[in-house]
């Protein structure tokens, strides 16, 4: 039995109108299945239902608009399958799909969502803070908000995300509660050579390993330097959510709920400790690399969306060089970050080298890359893990530096094995 406030009862009983009655019925359905004792107020939402795979997404959005939906809490939009700024070169591949996707996106903007169109909303100002109870949907953002920001969310699928945002309520369960956030298993990377532990590429592979082995447990990573960059943590969050479904993790001495082991485990001991070796990293790299040499047709960066700092590093690496004529080089990002990079002058350097920057969307589901036959090189563990199922391409995973080298040379350049 779920304990409800008067306001929640009014919504349930239809006193707040039919749309809120429907919305809270979805929230209560989830609360029942998760066995939550009550609902709590949420202060922010990141909406995934603005995505599009077919008529159901559109019919749902039209219903929201027809019935006068309004969002009582800041509700930001996830990335969408087509670019809304026109920087998506090959949209005409499938006009009906493009039209449907654009209509859905336009509706969410009209009904009051903040049109940020990004899977990395945590790179934007004025988002949720430590301790906030929020509605997360996209898997990497759920994991990043929980682990790195310290905001609290379950993973809310399409439609339930909107229902929670409209009602401003979430079931008080799982990762919303202190006990749901206790570290349970340990991934010890402290035996890896010091210089490796500073590499962003390694963090993506740690994420792949974490997702593969964690099941439904909350993992604690031990041994990363306290200087570990947010982009490396983004890599861990995204890869761990892709290869497994990790929605919360800790990094000792780095993430805010893990200043030390005592705090991360809330006084308990880990159920198991797994040591990560250089050989494990090589195995993980093999898992996300179906090719390791030969020509490359595309380089795809920015899954999740490329950050301002990543663009600055890319600009340094590619300044004065040219992307090989046989290679298409895409970077996906948000319109917000793209503008900041433009203002800094780095966008000119990057575009002059022949790099195309996609705004609002992502290469692995955009019609822009459907025609690509591969191989594709990426620095994203998540892209490398998912793309072979979504696009008929071979993938090579490597560091940002290796991706740039490959793009210029037209051939895959990969660092030697870590265990060698």
């Amino acid at each position, binding site marked *: 039995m779920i304990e409800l406030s008067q306001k929640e009862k009014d919504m349930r009983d239809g006193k707040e109108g039919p749309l809120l009655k429907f919305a809270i019925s979805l929230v209560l359905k989830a609360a029942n299945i998760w066995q939550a004792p009550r609902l709590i107020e949420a202060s922010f939402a990141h909406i995934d239902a603005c995505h599009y795979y077919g008529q159901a997404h559109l019919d749902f959005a039209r219903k929201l608009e027809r019935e006068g939906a309004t969002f009582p809490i800041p509700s930001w939009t996830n990335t969408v399958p087509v670019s809304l700024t026109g920087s998506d070169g090959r949209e005409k591949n499938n006009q009906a799909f493009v039209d449907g996707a654009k209509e859905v996106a336009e509706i969410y903007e009209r009904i009051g969502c903040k049109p940020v169109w990004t899977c990395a909303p945590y790179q934007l100002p004025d988002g949720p803070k430590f301790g906030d109870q929020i509605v997360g949907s996209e898997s990497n953002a759920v994991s990043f908000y929980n682990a790195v920001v310290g905001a609290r969310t379950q993973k809310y699928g399409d439609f339930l995300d909107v229902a929670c945002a409209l009602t401003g309520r979430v079931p008080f369960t799982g990762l919303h509660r202190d006990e749901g956030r206790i570290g349970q298993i340990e991934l010890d990377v402290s035996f890896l050579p010091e210089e490796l532990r500073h590499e962003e590429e390694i963090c993506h592979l740690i994420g792949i390993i974490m997702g593969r082995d964690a099941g439904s447990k909350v993992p604690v990573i031990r041994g990363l330097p306290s200087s570990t960059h947010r982009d490396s943590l983004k890599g861990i969050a995204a890869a761990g959510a892709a290869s497994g479904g990790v929605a919360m993790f800790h990094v000792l001495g780095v993430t805010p709920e893990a200043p030390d082991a005592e705090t991360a485990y809330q006084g308990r001991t880990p159920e198991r400790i797994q040591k990560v070796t250089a050989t494990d990293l090589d195995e993980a790299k093999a898992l996300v690399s179906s090719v390791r040499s030969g020509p490359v047709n595309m380089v795809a960066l920015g899954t999740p969306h490329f950050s301002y700092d990543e663009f600055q590093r890319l600009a340094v690496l590619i300044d004065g060089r040219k992307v090989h004529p046989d290679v298409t080089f895409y970077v996906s990002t948000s319109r917000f970050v793209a503008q900041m990079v433009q203002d800094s002058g780095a966008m000119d350097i990057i575009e002059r080298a022949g790099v195309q920057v996609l705004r609002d969307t992502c290469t692995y589901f955009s019609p822009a890359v459907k025609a690509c036959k591969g191989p594709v090189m990426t620095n994203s563990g998540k892209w490398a893990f998912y793309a072979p*199922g979504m696009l008929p391409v071979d993938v090579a995973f490597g560091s940002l530096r290796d991706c740039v080298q490959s793009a210029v040379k037209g051939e895959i350049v990969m660092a030697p094995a870590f265990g060698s």
Partner: protein
Amino acid sequence: MTPQSLKSEVLHPGTAQGELLVLDTPVSFWGGFDPNNGEIIEASHPQCGEKVTGKILVMYRGKGSAGTPAGVAESIRNGSGPIALILCEPEVNIAIGAAVASELYDVHMPVVCLEPDDYTKLIESNKTDISLTGEVTPH
């Protein structure tokens, strides 16, 4: 012999009668399944290429992604999907997809959850009925 009814937890109510398709491992309704034709498309899935259309789909647990509810709702809308889902571990995403399809299209695909012993009994059979209150009657 009178068929024995198994009591399930109703995650979304509806009625169905039909043949079972028991999956060896769960499939994701987003990415692992094509809602345009009802085929399992996850390359590594042992039943890749099979169609779920018109079947009572039986899988031990859901396989999550934020897009799952939309994949479920879309497959109910265009009739490519299963006519019911039977699970052993309760799953929010599939239930939400079914609830949204009920609201938008007035099609009510039951989603129910059985106890492990009953789940084992069910998968021995070829057909089953599902009632509005969650009685699952294999035959």
